[in-house]
């Protein structure tokens, strides 16, 4: 495998694992949030925000993946 292929694989792994971690956290928060909304619909905004919090992992994964790819292409 060439150096670029390794970089691409690494970037994909970073992005994929970050996305999986985010999805797992969001599934837990989402389920609890849905249950909360059934009893307190007025908390909808807070629940949406709580669901958005784990996205940081996805965002950071995305940033790291971009940096890996940029380094690999020498940009």
């Amino acid at each position: 495998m060439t150096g670029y292929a390794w970089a691409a694989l690494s970037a994909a792994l970073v992005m994929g694992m970050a996305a999986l971690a985010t999805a797992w956290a969001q599934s837990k928060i989402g389920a609890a949030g849905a249950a909360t909304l059934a009893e307190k619909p007025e908390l909808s905004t807070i629940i949406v925000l709580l669901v958005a919090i784990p996205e940081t992992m996805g965002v950071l994964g995305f940033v790291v993946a971009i940096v890996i790819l940029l380094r690999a292409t020498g940009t």
Partner: protein
Amino acid sequence: MSKVRLLGARQQLPEILPALQDFGLLQLAAAPSGPMIEPAALTTRDRRCRDQLQRIGRNIDAALAALPTVSPLAPSTREVPIAALPRIARQAWRTRRAAEALAARERALTDERTSTRKYRDLFDAFHDALEQVARTSALVTHAFVVPGRERAALGALAQAIAGQAGAHYTVAMHDLPDGDVALLLLLPSAESKHFESIIAGAGLPELEVPDAYAGRPLGQAIPLMLARLEIVERELADTHAQRAVLAKDATPELVSARRPLRESLARLDALAQCATTPHAFAIEGWVPTKAVAELRRRLTARFGAGVVVELLARDQWASDAAPVALTNPQLFRPFEAIVRFMPLPRYGTIDPTPFVAVFFPMMFGMMLGDLGYGVVLAALAVLLRFRSRPGSWQRTVAEIAAPCAAFTVIFGAIYGEVFGSAGQRLLPWKPLLDRERATLAALAAAVGLGLAHVVLGLILGAVSSWRGERRQAIGRGVTAIMLLLITTALLAAFEILPHALFTPAVIAVLVALPVLVLAEGALGLLELLSTFGNVLSYARIMALGTASVMMAAVANRLGGAMGSVLVGVALALLFHLVNFGLGLASPVVQALRLHYVEFFHQFYSPGGQPYRPFARATGDDR
């Protein structure tokens, strides 16, 4: 917020409360206490009046709950005169009684119709068998109707009975039109005891003949019930019409009476927060400082010099007890809605609305950043603005969307985007920042904005804490300085800034570090690390922006790749519509999150009690 005390002659008290309710400026505090001062007591007449008002209110609520909704109803502000109370009381009671009786009758008829329809289905399914049993007393019937999911239990019972009764007797199952399953057993009367124990053992609910037809076999009862079904339908329609007429006749007056009744009750309840001496009354409460003069002016205009407004010294009350009113310039006011999603800030701390009003649309625009989308959003905001009532949530959304659209246009011009990459062909200037290619520059811009936003939050935190907790204030300040110093050192190390800055920045960080530990302890270091995490979190602005521009580029390329111009345009429009929808939702959620989690965390101090002035009732009557 100012705390004031109103003083006047005791006989003026009954007129003062309605006046204060009209003004809607004063939030009543607990009744003042002291020698010779006691809380104003309700007279026997007041208590009777309150009980009557509460009773009328309960009757009106119950009557309206039992009647169908009549709309639209104009809100009423007219006063209910005391003389009208007996008439309203009678009307509320009569309407409640009639409405509840009609509602109960409608429920009973609906139940009868539902159950008769079930019997009808059963009768249709087992017509011959039921007619046979109606003619003889040698057979008894057992009928079961269960939901389809309990078919297995019904089948097991049918098998158990069939195994013992033999082919001579009927055991039949049938699927009913509504998904239920029916089972009919025709069994010998002589052996009914034996079969009853098997039936009881199955634990399935048996379809009983209704009380009105007790003693008749199902084969006779069902035709009688079916004959009544038409009458039930007619009576149901009649009852429904009577309820509609009653609602149309009674609702407007009952609704009109409800708001003044609530206001009268609020005045009686407010008496408990007034204090009296043998000759004077005293009322204490909170008024926004800017409105104190207005309160004085209005009281003087109505009562002359007889009522005095005394401004209590600030140190006589604890700030935690003071209610919080967010007061911002007209331009920023819509953004109070964003702050109100969180608990209100504590009294005396910083109201973040002006900062939200600047940064929220900026972040939104930075993420969506497209001239075409910005213009569409502006058009939607204008449309919503002119189609909404003042004070409604739609108006607030329109007023927030307008600056968001403006920033979207500005950043669209900077990125050179009009519906994605089409801008590079349409716009006469070169983009300052091409998000599609200059990913690293877009990332730097997003994190740079994050750094500025978080440092601003830390400075606000330092200012906010300075009055009460000096060490914390110093800690916040030092964290802000260290954040800037470390960023400078990093930029100097990568030679984005002159390398000569590296050493002084590192030395300054090393000097600031012990100060931070002294001010905030070891936790200060952890806070510093988490603050770095907060800054990096702003990378989502670039991430969402890149995703948005890529989606738009895909829309344009897909549209261009189609053989037919019409199909290509339709496909591109569809993709752009999806991207625009996502482009509205995601930046809103992410910008909110960046404010609530990353920015507010640095300084926001929740726990304020909302300012609720003693005022006339507002909101929908029904």
